[in-house]
């Protein structure tokens, strides 16, 4: 069983995967509570534009993914607050727009290849040491920001207006949350892939919510679910040579179904 750790690439993939599981499930809880699940899909597609620019232009795709996801996150928040556009529509428009842009960039650059495939569905083979360092640094900063403001973010998720009238800087914190989510999504596409990261961010929290317990317990349950899915998904990916994003999402779906059954009324 542990033979997989004899490979350096597996060790790297596991370190990266575990950090990502923690980040995705903690940030996912806030995203789900704000009824903002769709944002993870949209930001993942915006990150893909960054990957395309990176692959075609010869920049580090991971850094470009972070950059483009953050720009997209700010655009979403800006459109939402300045024009009070219905956020679902904004997210859908940006999602398709990003995908179109990404496809055009890779087509023009002639970068339709295996490397792109790994960014779509995740690959444990592709995580470099440089990626692990990037994920660890940005990951720690993102998690720090989330924990630092967790009480405020929780209040905002519950009732944005009452939070604002009690003196909480709602606009700033909404921007901060989407920025952190953007960074986490961009970091995750190496291991989970941009088409599947949304599921890893949302499903552990939605499963944890089925247990109907207080906030702290919900976060902890979601964290356990996220970690379990990533570890078992990557193991399956290793032994069956499948894209890691797909196996991780299958594991998290199994957890979701079990949570639904256990907690059915």
């Amino acid at each position, binding site marked *: 069983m542990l033979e997989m750790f004899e490979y350096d690439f597996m060790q790297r993939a596991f370190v990266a995967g575990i950090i990502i599981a923690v980040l995705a499930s903690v940030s996912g809880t806030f995203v789900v509570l704000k009824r903002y699940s769709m944002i993870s899909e949209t930001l993942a597609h915006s990150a893909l534009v960054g990957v395309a620019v990176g692959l075609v232009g010869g920049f580090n795709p991971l850094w470009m993914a972070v950059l483009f996801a953050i720009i997209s996150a700010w655009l979403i928040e800006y459109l939402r607050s300045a024009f009070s556009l219905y956020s679902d529509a904004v997210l859908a428009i940006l999602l398709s727009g990003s995908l179109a842009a990404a496809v055009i960039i890779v087509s023009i650059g002639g970068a339709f290849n295996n490397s792109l495939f790994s960014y779509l569905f995740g690959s444990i083979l592709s995580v470099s040491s440089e990626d692990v360092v990037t994920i660890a640094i940005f990951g720690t900063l993102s998690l720090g920001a989330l*924990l630092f403001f967790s*009480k405020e973010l929780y209040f905002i998720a*519950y*009732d944005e207006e009452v*939070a*604002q009238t*009690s003196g*909480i800087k709602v606009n700033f914190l909404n921007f901060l949350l989407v920025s952190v989510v953007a960074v986490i999504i961009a970091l995750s596409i190496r291991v989970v892939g941009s088409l599947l990261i949304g599921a890893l961010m949302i499903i552990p929290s939605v499963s944890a919510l089925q247990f*109907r317990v*207080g906030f702290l317990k919900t976060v902890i349950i979601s964290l356990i679910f996220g970690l379990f899915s990533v570890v078992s998904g990557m193991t399956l990916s290793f032994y069956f040579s499948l894209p890691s994003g797909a196996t991780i999402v299958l594991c998290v779906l199994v957890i979701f179904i079990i949570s639904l059954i256990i907690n059915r009324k």
Partner: protein
Amino acid sequence: MKFNLPIFDIKNLTFIVKGQRILSNISLEIFRSEYIAIIGPNGGGKTTLIRMLLGLEKPTTGEVKIYGKKLSNFKEWHKIGYVPQRASHVDSSFPATVLDIVKMGRTSQRGFFSSFSETDKKLVYDAMAKMDILDLKDKMIGTLSGGQRQRAMIARALASKPEILILDEPNTGVDAASQKNFYALLRKLNKEDKITIVFITHDIGVIADDIARLFTINEKAIICNNPKQLLSCQEMSELYGIDAHLLHNHKHEH
């Protein structure tokens, strides 16, 4: 009262959306330790007025001052406790116990990362005791009845130790006995703790003896400054749909 700086000072407030006048030229002041009731027909603009006081909605023209400051310069929001009209309509799966909810009332005054201090804890438990929900503290908010939720929302507002409590029809869905207790509690908060109370309600008759002034809002405002006039004000306000347009927004001398 005359020399007292008003908590809220509203001048010539008008709110127009999509060509429709919601509020016209409203001027009023709310003073420290006052107990004010706001009545008016559905859609009369009561909630809108409150939202403008709190900076949640921008007036088309006119000005709101809070403790003598413009809303944008005001920092001490913890002095204001607000329970919105739809407060008890929560997503039933939201992961919050009653204790989680009431603790939110301390969020803006707590230091970052700092754990819940003894003072925070005391204020949270006092607020729950006042609203008589201590025994519900570990219950999930989604499993409570409408009235119990409403009390949790008010406890959260009280936990921030407000100087003014703004309640937008907090009694919808509360049984008669609890309502009586609730009115007694408001009276006590006002008389003993000197908390200013702004209470939007449709049950004006029951609290007529408690309140200092009555605002009737139906696009315009009619202000009754003299408690002795309350009854005639009330009769007048029963016709508010018509009278509000005939009467000017006049203020009596204090």
